[in-house]
Structure formats: structure tokens, C-alpha cells
């Protein structure tokens, strides 16, 4: 089986929000954003916009009938700027016109006078000025303060860790259609249909049961549409309801990049203490999260940063301090890994620095400290098995690390201006929403009298293959061919209170719910034929659409079974609900069992640096990944490779640049560069641990969406490793991403021109 939408995709027949034939009288929205990053609005004039031919209406904060402020954790974000602006291009007004072009022209005719205030873009600076979104949090284990003296080596450092643009190929978009009796139907490119439904209801001041949100598929999300697709849906709904016409909003790329948040940049301080034998005794890290203007999801993102600050390593004395800092940028938000990558990076940097001081290989130091089964993390959860170490050992063996080490050395000894390097990255990533209540999934399975099946779940199809997984699960539980099964759009009228498709958990939660629904239908069906076949219902199974009694095929096939069940008045649709057991987390104490289980893996990246030009190539990326029992091989592989690719991009090319006044300078695909086919290595190999199960995931599978992202961190240290063979890196602040600019500076630390 392949991704179920593949054939539609390759022929351009799959429909995204604005591909569906437009309803009559469809109107178009465009956004007028703030020209400055911080200031007080002294005046706002949209009247000129209304003179533009085709423009029909303008909306501002004052036109919101219900709650003007939105936000899932704290409702602190005004839908349109309210008296002040806090980031560049923050939406101030929305122009509605009979064409997209006219609406855009309308926005150009808007004007505002803003008394400008200084903008803050650095989280350390924000912290200094008391601009925090929440009190500092501390996670502690052991006794860090008293251990430093007994360490043979203590190393401190600073990290400047960049953010990342989601760069989903499909920008944010939504179409809202008014319906009878004040209802509204919304087609949105969102990962969170229920949050969208709830927020629209609140903004419009209407009950949730009048808002239906439907999501067929997304052209990519990666977390960027978890919380930040909501506002555009609210705006479209607002205009649709007040004008009583369908309204569509499609952000152009530049607006999308300037108006929506990204992966959180962090500033970090670390301190690591080791014995001379290379045992890490203590690790301390301070995280200053660049949260942007509002809370959005910064709090849970930061929480995961804290939980994953020791990644895969066993360290007895740990202190993590973290604070979300308010800056004049769009609210930074969920992004594949959800703070995990930012948690893991400083420790990897610390290990690299420590390896230099101890004159040992970085990977040796890593291997000495990898956590094994039985280890308890600083938040109380145990590592229950040894598969993390197993992925490391397999990577070292299968990818011939020792051979690579000697080949690299030989190459570097014989080349002056070209150097090779490599690095390993182990990943131990917890699966579950750390907000325990979100760990619930629902599925609705319909079996029709012709034997075909429809499944609807709370999972959003954004390319990750959730629909295909749901179909595969139905197919295996029912024992029928996947071609007889379809996966429907995700719709708040069919599934209530949907958790966002996030935290890698979508397939787990909704897949398990689907299994429950399918089993419920099956059990009724089996009873019907058990009577007829004169056997026990428990002996009945279905394989390839044929009914078996024990080992023996019967005359009955699936279709007959369905019909017989129907005529016997047995239910052929069921709702399944699933909430994983055994998880609980006290966010105040920072203690508990937040994760259902862990996904593990180890990645090896090789790089070559051109020491004249400061450019580099990623030559190979190889992964051993623990997938449990995968559901659909090509889909799982695609998730690992895609995550890895984004991770590599984050630490290499992808650089968000802000001007001091808070404007994003890398605001288009021409100046923000993500990896392309040439940059990513042809030598990309993913191996899955064999013969491993996972009782927590559906059909023994493991969540796979986010963990591979962090493999990409290996690329950063592979390039650094190559640079180390040319010059000695010793900067005040370790900067990520390792752009060609950064690389050249590290190669020639003494160059200065005045």
C-alpha cells in the first residue's frame, strides 16, 4: 500500500481549500499589516480602501462581535491589533473585495499613524527588561551545585540557536460559507479543527454547534498550522457572517512568512561537568525562549524543551531553567519536535566542547553517557528498555563508524583546503502531548451495505499519511482489501473535541480509536454468522475478504457478512474512543510519566567543507530508527526522511534574519533557503530496528512524525567536526545554523578588515 492520495497528487487532482470550485459570490480577503514592529496606533484609516473598485468592506478590531482576543492557552492575542501593534505586519485590518487582486489593492490604500516604540527581538534583552510571558521554571535532579568541585572538567558556554520557518508549500488559507440559521461552514487548512471551531464561535459570539469546520488535507503543516491557522479562519468567518457571503482568505507567501510565527529561537547558557574518564556528572542549562508577542503555544513548547534537555544521556545531576520571553515578533509556535530540538542542542554543543577539552572523539563521549534501560529522567519517567542503545550500537556497526573514522583521517591528512567530518546523534523522544488531557482520539467507522467502508477520525491529513494509516488499520482489523476503504475529511460535525494533529501522536490516538470502532462492528457481525456456522464467534476471522472459521475458509465473504448483519439489524457503524492509559504529568512539580513511550534512533551524518570558500556539502545521512512495527513502509520512511531533511535544514541553511527594528529580512523564498534536492544527500539511508514491537501504538507501531527531525542536528556537528581539522573553533557564542557565512568565519577566526 502507498499513501492513499498519491494518485490524486501526481495528477494534480487532489483538492486543497481553494481548489474546490468556488461558491457563487465568493469574496476575497486580504490583510493590512502593521508597518512597524512596536508602537501605539494613533489613527487608522480604511476609507480609501473602500474607494478601490471591487472593495466591499473593511474590518478592524472594533468590528468583532464576540471576543476580540484569541489563544488556546491564554487568550492574549487580538485578532486585529487593538490600540497598539507588537510585531511587524501584525494584522490591523482586513479588506474584503470581489477579487483577490482588488482586496490586495485595498490593503495598499489603508493608512495608519503609529507612534513607534523600541522593538525587542532578543530574548535575553526581553528577560532583562522583565518582558516574560510566565515565571521562570526550574527542573532539577540530584545536586548540581555541590558536584562541580568533584568534576575534573567543567566547561561553560553560550548558544545562539536560530528559529525556523515552517515553509509548508501551501500557505495558510480558509474559506468560510454562511449557512441557514446563522450557521457557518468553514474549510480551513488547519491542524486543529476543534480549536478553530471554538475560537470562531467565541469571536463571533455564537455557540459551537453553529460552526462546522471541515479539513480535507493540508499542503504541509509541520506545527505551523496547529495554532496559527486559527486566526485566518476567524477572519474569514467574521467577514462571511457579517456580509452573509462566502469569503476566502489565501495568504500570499510573504504575508504568511511575516505574519505567522516560527520555530522558537533560543538563547542558552550551559555548564557541563565531567570526570576525566568522560562520565558526565552534571549538566546545567538556562533557556531563554524567544516566544514572540503572545503566548500561543510557547508554554508547552518550553516544557518539552525542558523535558528533552538531557536527550538520550544519563546524567545524575541536572538543573534546567527556562523562561519564555516576550519579543516583538509574531508569536513563535509549534514546529515538528515542539521544543525538543532546542532542548537537545545545547547538550550536544556541550559534549562537543567537552570532547575537545578531553581530547577525545565526540562520539566516544556520547557513547559513554548514553542512557540505558532503568535510567530515570529528571522528570521522573523511567527508560524501560534498551532500544536506544541498540540503535546506537547498530548505527556504529552497520555504518562502519571505525572505517569512516580512518577514511576521514586519511582524507584530511592529504587535503589542505578540503576537510571531511562526521557526527552521530542519538534521539530519545517522548510520545504524548505533555498536556495530558489532549491525549484522546476518536474514530467513526461506517460499513455500507455494498461492503465499502468509510473512516473519519480526528486526524488531519497533512502529508504525513494519517489517512493511509487509518485505512491500513481498518483493512487489517476487518481483513479486507484497502481499496474498499476511504478516509473522509476531518469534520467537527462528525468528530467532536478533536485534539490537534500534533505531538506525533495523531496516528496512535486515532489509530487506536479506529481499532476500537472496527472491533465493535466486527464483534456484532461475528455473532450473526457464528449462529449460522454453528461455531463460537471467537473462532471467526476474516482474511482477504473471506470469512474463516478457525483455520477453514467458509463459503461466506465480507459482502455477504455485511448484508447478513444489516438484515439482522446489527450496527454497521461505530464510534471508537481512545485515551492512552498510564500517563500523568504534574506540570507544576515537573514530575510524572508524561510520555506513553519513547521513540528512539541514531543518525550519522558526513560532511565535506570547502575551506577556501566556506561552503560545504552533506555527503551522507544514515539512520537507525526504532519504528516498532511500521504500518505502511513508504509512509513511515517518508516521515523519517522528511523529518531528517527539515532537521538538517534547521541547523545549516535556514536562517531567520531580523532587522534591529523587528522586521523579518528573510521574508520570501528568495532569501530564506530550505534544503533542495541537490543539497540533501543522495546517500540517505534509513534502517529500522527489526523484530521490535510497541504495545502502545496501533498494530505495534511507534509515532514517527517528530523524532527524526532531531537527527538533523548531526549535520551541524559533522560540519563543525570538519572545520576542526582546519582551524580551532573557539567562539564566545556557539551559533546555529551553520550557514556558509558562519562556516567561513569559523575557518578564518582571525580575519578582520577595518
Amino acid at each position: 500500500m502507498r499513501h492513499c492520495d498519491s494518485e490524486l497528487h501526481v495528477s494534480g487532482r487532489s483538492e486543497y481549500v481553494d481548489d474546490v470550485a468556488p461558491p457563487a459570490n465568493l469574496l476575497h480577503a486580504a490583510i493590512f499589516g502593521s508597518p512597524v514592529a512596536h508602537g501605539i496606533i494613533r489613527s487608522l484609516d480604511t476609507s480609501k480602501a473602500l474607494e478601490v473598485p471591487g472593495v466591499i468592506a473593511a474590518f478592524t478590531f472594533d468590528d468583532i462581535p464576540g471576543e476580540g482576543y484569541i489563544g488556546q492557552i491564554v487568550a492574549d492575542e487580538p485578532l486585529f491589533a487593538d490600540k497598539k501593534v507588537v510585531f511587524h505586519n501584525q494584522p490591523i485590518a482586513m479588506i474584503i473585495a470581489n477579487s483577490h487582486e482588488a482586496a490586495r489593492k485595498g490593503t495598499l490604500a489603508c493608512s495608519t499613524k503609529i507612534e513607534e516604540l523600541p522593538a525587542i527581538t532578543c530574548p535575553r534583552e526581553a528577560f532583562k527588561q522583565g518582558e516574560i510571558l510566565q515565571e521562570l521554571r526550574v527542573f532539577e535532579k540530584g545536586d548540581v551545585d555541590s558536584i562541580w568541585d568533584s568534576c575534573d572538567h567543567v566547561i561553560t558556554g553560550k548558544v545562539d540557536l536560530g528559529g525556523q520557518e515552517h515553509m509548508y508549500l501551501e500557505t495558510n488559507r480558509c474559506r468560510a460559507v454562511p449557512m441557514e440559521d446563522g450557521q457557518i461552514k468553514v474549510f480551513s487548512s488547519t491542524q486543529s479543527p476543534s480549536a478553530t471551531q471554538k475560537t470562531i464561535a467565541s469571536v463571533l459570539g455564537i455557540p459551537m454547534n453553529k460552526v462546522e469546520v471541515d479539513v480535507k488535507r493540508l499542503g504541509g503543516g509541520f506545527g505551523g498550522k496547529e495554532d496559527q491557522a486559527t486566526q485566518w479562519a476567524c477572519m474569514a468567518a467574521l467577514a462571511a457572517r457579517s456580509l452573509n457571503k462566502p469569503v476566502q482568505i489565501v495568504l500570499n507567501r510573504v504575508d504568511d512568512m511575516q505574519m505567522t510565527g516560527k520555530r522558537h529561537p533560543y538563547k542558552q547558557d550551559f555548564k557541563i561537568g565531567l570526570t576525566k574518564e568522560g562520565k558526565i556528572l552534571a549538566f546545567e542549562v538556562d533557556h531563554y525562549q524567544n516566544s514572540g508577542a503572545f503566548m500561543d503555544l510557547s508554554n508547552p513548547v518550553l516544557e518539552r524543551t525542558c523535558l528533552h534537555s538531557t536527550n538520550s544521556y544519563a546524567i545524575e545531576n541536572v538543573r534546567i531553567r527556562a523562561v519564555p520571553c516576550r519579543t516583538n515578533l509574531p508569536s513563535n509556535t509549534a514546529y515538528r519536535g515542539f521544543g525538543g530540538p532546542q532542548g537537545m542542542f545545547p547538550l550536544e554543543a556541550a559534549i562537543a566542547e567537552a570532547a575537545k577539552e578531553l581530547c577525545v572523539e565526540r562520539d566516544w563521549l556520547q557513547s559513554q553517557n548514553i542512557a540505558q534501560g532503568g535510567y530515570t529522567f529528571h522528570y521522573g519517567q523511567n527508560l524501560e528498555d534498551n532500544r536506544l542503545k541498540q540503535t546506537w550500537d547498530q548505527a556504529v556497526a552497520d555504518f562502519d563508524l571505525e572505517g569512516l573514522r580512518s577514511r576521514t583521517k586519511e582524507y584530511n591528512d592529504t587535503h589542505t583546503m578540503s576537510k571531511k567530518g562526521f557526527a552521530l546523534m542519538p534521539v530519545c523522544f517522548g510520545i504524548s502531548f505533555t498536556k495530558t488531557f489532549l491525549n484522546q482520539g476518536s474514530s467513526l467507522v461506517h460499513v455500507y451495505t455494498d461492503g465499502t467502508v468509510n473512516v473519519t477520525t480526528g486526524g488531519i491529513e497533512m502529508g504525513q499519511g494519517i489517512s493511509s494509516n487509518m485505512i491500513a488499520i481498518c483493512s487489517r482489523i476487518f481483513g479486507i482489501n484497502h481499496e474498499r476503504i476511504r478516509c473522509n475529511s476531518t469534520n467537527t460535525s462528525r468528530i467532536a473535541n478533536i485534539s490537534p494533529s500534533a505531538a506525533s501522536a495523531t496516528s496512535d490516538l486515532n489509530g487506536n480509536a479506529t481499532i476500537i470502532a472496527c472491533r465493535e462492528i466486527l464483534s456484532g457481525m461475528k455473532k450473526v454468522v457464528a449462529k449460522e456456522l454453528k461455531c463460537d464467534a471467537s473462532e471467526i476471522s476474516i482474511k482477504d475478504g473471506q470469512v474463516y472459521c478457525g483455520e477453514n475458509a467458509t463459503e461466506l465473504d465480507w459482502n455477504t457478512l455485511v448484508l447478513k448483519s444489516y438484515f439482522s439489524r446489527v450496527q454497521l457503524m461505530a464510534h471508537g474512543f481512545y485515551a492512552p492509559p498510564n500517563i500523568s504529568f504534574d506540570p507544576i512539580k515537573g514530575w510524572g510519566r508524561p510520555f506513553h513511550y519513547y521513540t528512539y534512533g541514531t543518525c550519522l551524518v558526513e560532511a565535506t567543507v570547502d575551506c577556501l570558500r566556506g561552503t560545504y556539502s552533506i555527503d551522507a545521512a544514515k539512520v537507525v530508527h526504532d519504528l516498532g512495527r511500521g504500518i505502511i513502509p513508504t509512509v513511515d520512511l517518508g516521515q523519517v526522511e522528511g523529518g531528517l531533511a527539515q532537521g538538517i535544514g534547521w541547523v545549516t541553511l535556514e536562517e531567520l534574519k531580523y532587522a534591529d527594528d523587528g522586521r523579518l529580512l528573510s521574508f520570501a523564498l528568495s532569501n530564506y533557503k530550505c534544503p533542495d534536492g541537490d543539497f540533501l544527500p543522495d546517500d540517505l539511508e534509513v534502517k529500522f530496528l527489526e523484530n521490535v514491537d510497541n504495545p502502545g501504538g496501533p498494530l505495534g507501531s511507534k509515532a514517527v512524525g517528530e523524532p527524526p527531525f532531531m537527527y538533523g542536528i548531526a549535520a551541524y556537528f559533522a560540519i563543525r567536526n570538519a572545520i576542526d581539522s582546519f582551524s580551532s573553533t573557539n567562539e564566545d557564542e556557539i551559533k546555529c545554523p551553520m550557514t556558509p557565512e558562519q562556516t567561513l568565519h569559523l575557518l578564518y577566526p582571525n580575519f578582520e578588515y577595518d
Partner: protein
Amino acid sequence: MLIKKQITFLLNDELLTIETPPVLVALDYLRKNKHLTGTKEGCKEGDCGACTVMVGELISGEVKYKPVTSCLLPMGELHGKHLVSIEGLNMNQPSPVQTAMVDCGGTQCGYCTPGFVVAMTAGLMDEEIPLNKKGADYAISGNLCRCTGYRSIKEAGIQAIDHLAPKLKNKPRIPTLCDIGALPNSFQNVSEKLAKIPPLQDSTLPDTPSLPFVAGGTDLLVQRGEELADDSPSLINNTPIAPIVEKGEYLVVDARTSFEDFANDPLIQKAVPDILSYNDLIASWPIRNRATLGGNICNASPIADMTSLLLALEAELEIESPETNRLLPLKNFFIGYKQLAKEGHEQISNIHLPKPKTNTFINWEKVSKRKILDIATINSAAKIVIGNEAINEVHLSIGGVAATPLYLTKTSQSLAGKTLSTETVLEAVDLAQSEFNPISDVRGSAQYKRLLSRQLLIAHFTKLFPETISEEAINASL
């Protein structure tokens, strides 16, 4: 003022005559006017390839297809041409490219996918593109995917080629692809259909051309696309582009020559032996099919790639208006940031390139954040003529360090007559720093540009004369 233009063209398998704003881009026409929504918008500035379509043009009796980004393609240019969107490639059965993409898992969210399928198919249809891994990569140089990590897409390209290459061996590609079900049959008789379209009777054209000139539109429509959609600028690519010819000591190049045609021209390849490897580092295949030399020069961006090369090659511009026709050295053309030594209504008609003398060595360097499809942080070109004992002539250019593309007059002169040695080179690159003053911007800090410009100037010499100028010696000097 908007003057609509009547054009007749083939859209997939449908012959259409429409009135169109000349600079309505094909992407909007397809999606909004025709509701052909397989073509996607990802950036509207040529950078993602989600909107890739093919344009077929009748050239000496045969239709040649090129992939281009429809978001920068003015409809006004399509008279007599064949516009092919993903819908025009669909058949009852998936094509080998489509099948390979499905088999290899080359599609996840699917948003980028039609663009990839069109580009890969275009690669198969173009006789010049080799049916191997290199050709497969070439074809998708303009396409971004955020989901897959590309391994699966690259594999799909190879799978399709492995499947088709044996069948295409020694056969004309397009008819053969049709015969074996890899292209719709409607591609069989396109040349007849296009030949029947009468040439445009351009009575609507005013006497004086309306400004600005649009050549490939790959700069102009990125910067001013929304505004120009309501206007009727002159589409100067609408008349046939003259082939590159030799005239005495010069090669004469029509300014409207695309990057792709320029790099693939045998005369150019003779004069600039490594031109094809430079070409790979400039924009992407679909953009190079549109981007023109004249546009590159007149856009006057400090990091214009072809311009930096042409500067070192001592190009001269033939500048034309109804009143005048004059020749100007390219190095005298830039007088300030985006300020040119020409009137707005003057058009560059041709570029004159002196044919290289014997013992001429040419090199071009570019560093950008991403190697493919990215704007240079710094680019630089060198033309060096070596005499018996010493250097005869040097022409160095550099981009990205000043308000305009720069010809390094002092540094170039300083090298003439000197003996080629590590010291000479180091002195020269130090002198070069006094000829410009880079600023910090999104492409890098001023310090970085200083250092990088130095390195790229050195690179010319280490690359061209590795025996004399060793990287080791240079490195030891830092």
C-alpha cells in the same frame, strides 16, 4: 493603461482565442479563469516550482518544450504557443513519471507534486537532457518539496528514466513517448496545430513602446507583478530571438537570449569553456529558460550572475532606440544603485563579446547560501591572458560588494605585466578590498563579504593555475 491583447494558443489539447491583459500570469489564468487547479501557487516568485508548466514553441517546424514557472509567465507571450499544465499530461493511466512518484513515495502532502511531475516530464521530452541521474536532477532543479527529503523523488526520477531510456534510444523523444503511453497522444500533432495559428496582427501596439520592457519577466514580475497586471508594458520577447553569430573579432548575442540558450550555444561554449558548469549555479532550469542576459544587465542588481561574467569578458552593449544606436562597454553602464547609462526607452538590442585570444583563462565563482537556485552572496569572474613571461591582461569583476556589479579596474590593471606568483595574487586581492565597501544585509555581514570576496578572488588563481599558485601557500598566508 490596460490594453487587452488577443491571443490564440493551445492550452493542453484545446485551441483557444482569448483577450487577455498582457501581463496576466499564466498561473492566475489557469487557476482562476480556467479553474485548472493542478498548478499550485507556492511563492509567486519563481522560487518553489509548484506552478511549473511547459511552454511549447514551434521552432523550424518542430515544437520545443521548456518548463517555466507559470507565476512569472505573461499570457501576452503565448500567442501561437502550446501551454501545458499538469492536466495536459494526465491520461487514463498514470504516466511512467506519475507511476514512479507513487511507487517511490515521492509525494506526501502533494502540494509540490504536480510541479515535480511537469518538470520531470519536461526533462524526458528535451533531447538535450541526458537520460540519467544527472538529467533527472537537472530537471528538478527548480522544485522544492518540504515533506519528503527528496530521496524518494530523486529515486522516482531514476525509475522513470530506467523504464523509458531503452525505449527512447535513437528515437525522437516526444513521438516515442506518445507511442509508449508516456505522454498523451495530443502531443503528436501539435506542430500542425500551432503552424495554423496566424501570426499576431499587432495593430493594437502603440508607436512608442510602453514601458517598462518585459523580457523574461523574472525580475520585473517578482518586483512589480501585481501592479503591471493592470498595465500594458512591452513584451519584447514577442519577436523571434536572433541566434548568436560571429562578427569579426566579436560574438554578437541578442540581448533577449535566455541563460539556458546562451550556455548551450556552441560558440559560447568555445569562448567560455566551463559555461555549463556555471549555468548549473544560476537560478534553476525553468528560470533560466526565461531569464535573459539583457534583463540581468538592466535589472542592475549588484549580484547579477551573468553580468559579473560578462563584465570580465569585456562585453559591450548595443543600445538602441528609434533615434539612436550606440555601443557602450558594459563596465561603463552602471552609474549608481539601479542607475544605468541609458534612457528609459532605450533598449539593449545586442551584446558584443570579444572572442578570447590564445592563452586566455576564464573562471567564474559564486557562493550563495544554497548552491542551487539561490542569489549569490558574492560572485566574481576573471579573464586572464598570459604572455610568455608575465601576465598580459587581467579582467576581474565582483558582485555583491557594492551598489552595482563591479569591474575591478585598479586591481585588474595592477596585475598586467606582473609575473604570476603567490605574492602577486595576495597583493592583488588586498588591493581589491580598497575598490569596494560592502554592507551587511540578508545575504551576509560586511565582514563576511570582505572575507568571501577575498577568497573568491584567490579561487580564480588557484583554480586556473594550480601549478603556480597553490592553495597551501595561500592558506599559509592567512
